């Protein structure tokens, strides 16, 4: 093999550059906690519509399901696995607790590089009036 040293240096350099993203993400391990622990406000309480683990992995499925059922089937109430009743509403039910949309939604989504298009149309908490923010979230059990 000709130019043994030059070629092997070249290969080594290429491998280093190609694996750079892996090293980079390994170095920044600390920042990943945004995905593991989104900022949940104290006012949000202990439980979400469903269990924390379920919401973490399936919130997008649930939101799409709610969206389709409300718009296309006019079914506006959701009964969760504990028999509690919720209004299927992003601005009211979801953002009623998670009014910190910037920290709660955006940090994870920026890191996961998933664009949230919900708020192109749906209003953000800061665009809602005080009255509207407090009033709508309803949370009652089936028996009532």
């Amino acid at each position, binding site marked *: 093999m000709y130019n043994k040293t030059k070629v092997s240096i070249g290969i080594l350099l290429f491998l280093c550059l190609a694996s750079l993203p892996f090293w980079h993400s390994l170095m920044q391990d600390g920042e990943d906690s945004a995905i593991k622990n989104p900022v949940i406000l104290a006012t949000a309480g202990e439980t979400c519509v469903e269990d924390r683990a379920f919401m973490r992995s399936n919130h997008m499925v649930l939101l799409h399901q709610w*969206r389709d059922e409300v*718009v*296309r089937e*006019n079914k*506006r109430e959701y009964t969760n696995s504990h028999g509690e009743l919720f209004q299927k509403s992003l*601005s009211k039910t979801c953002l009623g607790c998670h009014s910190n949309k910037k920290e709660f939604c955006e940090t994870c989504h920026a890191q996961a590089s998933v664009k949230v298009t919900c708020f*192109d*149309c*749906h*209003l953000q908490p800061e*665009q*809602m*009036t005080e009255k*509207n923010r407090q009033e709508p979230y309803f949370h009652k059990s089936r028996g009532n």
Partner: protein
Amino acid sequence: MKFDNKVNRKEFLKLTGIAALIGVGGKTGFSLYASGQEPETDSDENKNKIRYGLLIDTKKCPPDCTDCSDICHSKHNVPSYKSKKIEIKWIWKEPAKHLFPENNWDLKPVAAKNVPLLTVCNHCKNPPCVRVCPTQATFKRDDGIIMMDYHRCIGCRFCMAGCPYGSRSFNYKDPRKGLTELNPDYPTRTTGVVEKCNLCAEKIGDGSSPYCVEKCSKGAIIFGNLNDPESEIRKAIEQDHVLRRKAELGTEPSVFYKV
């Protein structure tokens, strides 16, 4: 090797032809003679007892009043622009000659020709916009309301070409730029989607009327279930002479005009 069959090639083709004729022609013939009734095209009609509609009394509606469109547009976050080219309309007024072009306007006084009449999506029984929509973003609800799923709209504007009433508007701009005040109870739309009247689908579920009907102090708009013989709107339609826009097209509008 030689086949020792009684059916030769010619006979085989003949038999196949006859079998095909019986197969294809038989079903058509059977359905032709089986019953005198035409097949039900609108299967929804039997299943659903509700078909919402409006009756607009043009005599009671003052030409210069815009109460209904003001409340509708503010409640549904419908933007207003200076330019007519990009305007968004859910409910608005249009000269009579545009609403009923088939009328013999050349024989009528100019004032009658240009009198502004109220118009809105007709929520047709046979809606062309629903038929042409490639993504089923526009669909017909069981209660007859023609709804839009803005999540699915790709902005192709086929529905705008399909609608013979001009009831649809396209968002050329971000609608939030045309809004001075946002109603927090209702979302806005986004650039690149079509929008139209939804007959207040978010509101009428609990038995109340659309905003335009509620707001009208003259009682010029009646809202109700066209399929209920006891409803106010049905009785009014039975009593009076009513018109529908471009009824000859066969779209069967659910918005009626008392003239």
